[in-house]
């Protein structure tokens, strides 16, 4: 058996296990070292991923494929995890929580997401999703002394378990129809099952898988758990869930629906298109009324999910690569915003938008970064979000769904309303009398700087990433 293919996963899960094992023997004062060990492990896993041969064949009993898609998404998950480690060090330590347990759960969750990225079989993909989900439930409830975190964990657990059950039911139907769990085999099996009198079961299976994964990515109308879970979870975890858990949901959608159910695209495409337009509208319109920045960004992330779904709905290679590019842009934008929020809430737990009054004078650097991230969410030129939306609009027009392009444009206009509120509060409103300068730790500053570089780089020189996402998405639609 050749384990070479999964060395990155072995390293990340090994670091997680190591942190659990060392945790009781390391005093609270030295816990910061766990963060550096964890970062080193994630970096090593990234280097190992880059060293993997990209053949596209199947290894480990057909469970794993090493194609461009699996390589890019492994790197996305590793980068996101490393940024979250940086922005959570002070946040967790300041609250007197156990950093070793927190980081080990983060490593296990990342392992699950990486297993999903490399899976070419629904069995390993589902197990990866469960590993990610179970770790995420605990992470959401990690600050259990705060009632919001408690509620977030419980809501996430109940809704996530329901979604997992529906997904399993749908996948068991596809197995019953085709006798296969391998995703490439599903592609042919489902298409032929459609013409042999099993059509209603095929629709039931496709519907269940779509509904369950819509739960996981928090697409409307399956999003009702998301605002509460995202608002109540610890701030670094909220960023992690929004980026890694949702991107992993998209990995499952791309692998199972776009690849496994690819021949049925003419049937599920319109449903995904409807889901996309409904999700972005619900997210943007509801965000207008929010007073808490985490809750506002939760609705904003629902809107972003709607944009990405456009790329999947058109079911063209251009759409897939635009969706992948937008997910990378979304990673840097979201983690940039959450790096700022986490840096601000290390000492002061206030998450109301009014708490950001006068931030432009109290801490100009953080305010500039948050403003750039909000501009990227809106899609202002020279930011990552602009290039992402450009790619999605182009894909929608070329894919014959120009009305989706109009939907993205209209929704971006609506979204200016609530992003502008935050920007105006930061730059125009006077600072509170007791609000001094904000002290940012080196780790927090590094995460802020790295995400800023990512957002601006993708906005100015996107060619390399356009090429990467095209390369990664090449094998998705067959």
């Amino acid at each position, binding site marked *: 058996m050749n384990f070479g293919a999964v060395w990155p996963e072995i390293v990340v*899960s090994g670091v997680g*296990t190591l942190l659990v094992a060392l945790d009781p023997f390391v005093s609270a004062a030295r816990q910061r070292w766990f963060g550096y060990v964890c970062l080193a492990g994630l970096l090593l896993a990234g280097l190992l991923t880059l060293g993997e041969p990209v053949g596209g064949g199947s290894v*480990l*009993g057909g469970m794993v494929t090493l194609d461009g898609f699996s390589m890019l998404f492994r790197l996305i998950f590793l980068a996101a995890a490393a940024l979250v480690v940086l922005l959570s060090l002070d946040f967790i330590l300041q609250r007197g929580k*156990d950093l070793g*347990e927190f980081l080990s759960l983060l490593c296990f969750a990342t392992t699950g997401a990486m297993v999903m990225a490399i899976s070419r079989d629904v069995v390993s993909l589902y197990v990866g999703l*469960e590993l990610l989900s179970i*770790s995420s439930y605990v992470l959401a409830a*990690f600050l259990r002394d705060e009632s919001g975190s408690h509620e977030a964990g419980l809501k996430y657990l109940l809704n996530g378990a329901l979604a997992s059950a529906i997904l399993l039911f749908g996948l068991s139907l596809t197995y019953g129809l085709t006798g296969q769990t391998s995703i490439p085999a599903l592609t042919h099996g489902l298409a032929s099952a459609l013409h042999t009198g099993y059509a209603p079961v095929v629709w039931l299976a496709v519907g269940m898988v779509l509904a369950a994964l819509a739960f996981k990515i928090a697409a409307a109308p399956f999003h009702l758990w998301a605002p509460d879970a995202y608002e109540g979870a610890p701030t670094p975890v909220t960023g992690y869930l929004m980026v890694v858990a949702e991107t992993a949901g998209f990995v499952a959608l791309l692998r199972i629906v776009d690849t496994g159910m690819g021949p049925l695209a003419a049937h599920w495409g319109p449903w995904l298109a409807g889901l996309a337009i409904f999700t972005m509208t619900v997210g943007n319109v509801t965000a207008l009324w929010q007073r808490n920045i985490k809750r506002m960004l939760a609705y904003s992330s629902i809107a972003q999910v709607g944009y990405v779904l456009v790329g999947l709905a058109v079911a063209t290679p251009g759409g897939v690569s635009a969706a992948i590019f937008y997910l990378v842009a979304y990673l840097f934008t979201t983690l940039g915003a959450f790096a700022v929020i986490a840096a601000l809430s290390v000492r002061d737990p206030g998450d109301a938008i009014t708490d950001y009054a006068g931030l432009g004078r109290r801490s100009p650097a953080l305010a500039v970064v948050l403003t750039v991230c909000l501009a990227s969410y809106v899609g202002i030129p020279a930011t990552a979000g602009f290039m992402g939306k450009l790619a999605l609009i182009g894909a929608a027009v070329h894919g014959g769904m120009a009305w989706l392009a109009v939907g993205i444009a209209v929704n971006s206009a609506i979204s200016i309303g609530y992003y502008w509120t935050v920007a105006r509060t930061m730059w125009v409103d006077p600072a509170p009398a007791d609000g001094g300068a904000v002290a940012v730790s080196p780790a927090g500053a590094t995460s802020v700087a790295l995400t800023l570089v990512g957002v601006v780089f993708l906005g100015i020189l996107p060619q390399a990433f356009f090429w990467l996402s095209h390369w990664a998405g090449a094998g998705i639609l067959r």
Partner: protein
Amino acid sequence: MISFALIGAAAVAAAIGVVTARHPVHSVLWLIVHLCSLAVLYMTLHAPFLGLVQVLLYAGAVMVLFLFVLGLLSARTRPDPAEPEPLTGQLGWTIGAGVVIAAVLLLAAGAGAAGANPHALPAGFGGVSAFGQALFGPYLLPFEATALALLTAIVGVVALSTGHDEAMRRPPTEPEAEPEGPALDVSHAAMDPRRGVGGGRD
């Protein structure tokens, strides 16, 4: 076919019992019936080892663990029969969805029954050796990932159940209880007619 229908019906009935029973211990007992029916189904599907493991591990060990936990937590609390249903209308939705799914599957089963052609099973199918070969062969990655998921669950339980005590034991770095103190005092004072609102602490 008839045995499948009977055992399947038993499994479904027991599963309905799990979710409708008002007492948690009754739910666990129904779950044991359900898991045992699944075990019999596995045996009729030529997977005797899986059936045995199902009985030993799930119906046996795991359910005993469930009963222990229930005994520690809530076995003595009597559910209030007059308590209103927390999710109104869920029964109708559940029955509706169940009927639709059952109808689709029964129609498909009717359509497929004529052309059913069971594959010949390889020699040794469902035995311990074949089971082990599959688990440590093609299914090694999901198997190991499942092991990691169990470890995660253990770490999660430790993180969520001990963090609270530790935070209480640790000497507080900031006076945390300060903001809540006066508010509680005022409410006590308001409830106690012998003490005026301005009376303050003893």
